[in-house]
């Protein structure tokens, strides 16, 4: 029987920018089972990255988790925090949002680790790859050398030690053993000549190699949950397949849980056991792979499947929707018309957020829909009235219902450059940034 490793209840993450409050993630529920690969799929700006980062506590100012619970299943942790924070413990589950930040931080690397979209910008350019992986190894080594209860404290490394380490090698954070382990990890992810490569800098690696190194780094902590945020997006198509293979193999070997974030349904189809489709900070449809691919209800899911550029590899291991097949044959995309929705609190209103782009928008869509059960497995849930009633022309909203005003508001929120408004921490940060960035 499978057990949940992570349960997210009512998670809301908001960014408080100068333009206003951005509801990147609203009232989101999520359940991930130990050992499964759970996929979150959605357009840029749908809040999928923020969800992932919320889970491993990487939300930075001006973002904040404003509500919700994140229950992590870990006996040792539950035991360690039970005395101090009884309210945060429920059996072997611990509500991560109720424990001190220090404890949450102590989970990084060892309980959760993350693979980022762009390997080239996710490594520090001025340290060798080996050194950076060794740091991650060191985290794991120090953690396993200490009982759970004191782990949080051992995560400290004083400035004094750092200064001393410049003259005393014994005070260095990274030990020799960790460096050796880093080389093993590089070998594990299939990097040739790992000994030499460990001493090279990120710019000396190719993108694919670097993504492998990132995976090695993420594996260093032997995490319970690996969050992979668009792990292949920045890579060439051929390399993408290799990296996915690698992840697949590693998952099989270690049995670790993976939370996979992607906008690419092909990747989902190939990797995931269950999947959630995100739109405007909510999961609008979730279920097993079959539920979403075959029995999808939400027009957005349908739209997404229509915009799959390419389902590489043995994608068709499950029959995909007709519409998903079409573009492969036709070789052209069918993107969802309309703009990414504004996530500004004041502009969101109380309706189905997709209604303004939805080809099947009806009067019913003007109130915010709850999650309905969908056809297929019992996992299948969908946040769309179409789960309960058929689309009828009679109730359809006029095409210009949302008019120019609403659209304009969305445009205004959009980045002036016209690039995607993916409300990721960096971007939100840089919006407020404004006055920084002196360059002299």
């Amino acid at each position, binding site marked *: 029987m499978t057990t949940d490793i992570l349960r997210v209840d009512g998670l809301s993450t908001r960014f408080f920018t*100068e333009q206003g409050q951005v509801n990147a993630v609203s009232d989101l529920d999520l359940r991930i089972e130990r050992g499964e690969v759970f996929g979150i799929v959605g357009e840029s700006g749908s809040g999928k990255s923020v969800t992932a980062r919320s889970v491993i506590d990487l939300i930075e100012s001006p973002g904040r988790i404003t509500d919700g619970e994140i229950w992590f299943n870990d006996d040792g942790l539950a035991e360690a925090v039970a005395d101090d924070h009884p309210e945060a413990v429920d059996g072997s589950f611990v509500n991560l949002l109720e424990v001190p930040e220090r404890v949450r931080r102590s989970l990084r690397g060892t309980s959760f680790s993350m693979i980022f979209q762009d390997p080239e910008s996710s490594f520090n350019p001025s340290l060798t790859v080996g050194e950076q992986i060794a740091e991650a190894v060191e985290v794991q080594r120090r953690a396993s050398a200490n009982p759970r209860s004191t782990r949080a404290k051992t995560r400290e490394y004083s400035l004094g030690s750092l200064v001393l380490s410049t003259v005393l090698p014994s005070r260095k954070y990274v030990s020799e053993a960790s460096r050796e382990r880093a080389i093993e990890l590089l070998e594990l992810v299939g990097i040739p000549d790992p000994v030499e490569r460990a001493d090279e800098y990120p710019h000396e690696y190719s993108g694919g190699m670097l993504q492998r190194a990132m995976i090695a780094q993420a594996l260093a902590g032997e995490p319970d949950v690996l969050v992979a945020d668009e792990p292949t997006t920045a890579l060439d198509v051929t390399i993408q397949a290799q990296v996915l293979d690698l992840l697949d193999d590693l998952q099989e070997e270690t049995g670790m849980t993976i939370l996979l974030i992607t906008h690419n349904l092909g990747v989902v189809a190939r990797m995931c056991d269950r999947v959630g489709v995100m739109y405007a900070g909510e999961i609008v449809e979730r279920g097993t792979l079959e539920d979403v691919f075959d029995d999808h209800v939400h027009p957005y899911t349908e739209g997404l499947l229509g915009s799959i550029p390419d389902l590489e590899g043995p994608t068709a291991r499950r029959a995909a929707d007709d519409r998903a097949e079409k573009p492969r044959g036709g070789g052209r995309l069918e993107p969802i018309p309309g703009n990414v929705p504004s996530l500004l609190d004041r502009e969101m209103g109380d309706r189905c957020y997709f209604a303004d782009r939805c080809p099947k928008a009806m009067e019913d869509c003007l109130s915010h829909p709850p999650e309905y059960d969908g056809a297929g497995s019992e996992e299948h849930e969908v946040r769309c009235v179409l789960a309960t009633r058929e689309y009828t022309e009679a109730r359809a909203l006029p095409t210009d219902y949302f008019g120019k005003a609403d659209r304009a508001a969305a445009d205004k929120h959009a980045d*002036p450059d016209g690039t995607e408004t993916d409300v990721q921490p960096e971007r939100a940060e840089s919006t407020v940034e*404004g*006055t*920084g*960035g*002196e*360059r*002299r």
Partner: protein
Amino acid sequence: MISDRVASNLKAEFRRNLLPKIGLVVLTAILLMALFAPVLATHNPNTTGYFDDGTSYPPMGTTAESYEVVDGERQSIEVEPSSEHLLGTNNVGQDVFSRLLYGARTSLLVGTLGTGIAVIMGVPFGLISGYFGGRIDDAMMRVADVMLAFPSLVLALALVGVFGSMTVSIPDPFVAAGLAEGMPSSTPLPGTVTLVVGLVTWVWFARVARGEAMAIRNEEYVTAARSLGASDATILFKHVLPNSLTPVIVLATIQVASVILLESSLSFLGFSGTTLSWGYEIQQGQEYLRQNWWISTIPGVGIVLAVISINLLGDWLRDSLDPNIEGEGGGAA
């Protein structure tokens, strides 16, 4: 050169931040003071006035200590400010307030003209160097390296030594129009200093212009223009120059501040030739710090306010336009 988007960026940054507003208000005030100095001044800034005991009036609201000789003995006396002299008088009895106004003229004139010279010299140099690249670029950049090897103040000092001070008298329109009775009929501009600050700062403009030219030279539309038979001069003038203006404008703003500091340093060291300068006034006052603290202090406040306000506006431009500039910036003093 200033697109709508740039303009709206500028506006948005301005609206969002307090600092550029402060900068604009202060700089406008200083500009007005400088422009209308002859009208606003309460005294001719050159008029010396003296008292038998050599007393200087302190600024309003303060008193100063001085000495009086009674029967051959010095006795301490307290000097009250005079309502005639808002900010007191200096060691030769000139009105500090009026000199503050005229000093603003010198600073801003030298700041803008000097920067103008630097732009005129540096931008074409950098454009040509960056546009043609190769050996021309190498050679020209070595020249720039030589310029950079001279600390700007040191080079300025050497040049002032060579050229003397060459003050240029600029007739004062207010006096000519009869609007400012009794004010000096012309404002002396320290010619050498203006030239010299241009000569020592042009290289920063050359570097920026070069960077832009190198970036633009390979743009497709430039290649296209070239393939259509446009001459290098045309391309430089029509395509490369306009595109390099944004960073040049930002750098120029920042450089005005640094040129003002450089001018004040030169005046302070006694090389500017004119006495109507904040730096000169500070130097004169240095010997009088014990009794007449205000002579040095007040013009210094003028410099700091002017430079801060320009720097604030420079920061605003840079943040809004986000050019890639590395330069001397800030202050060369």
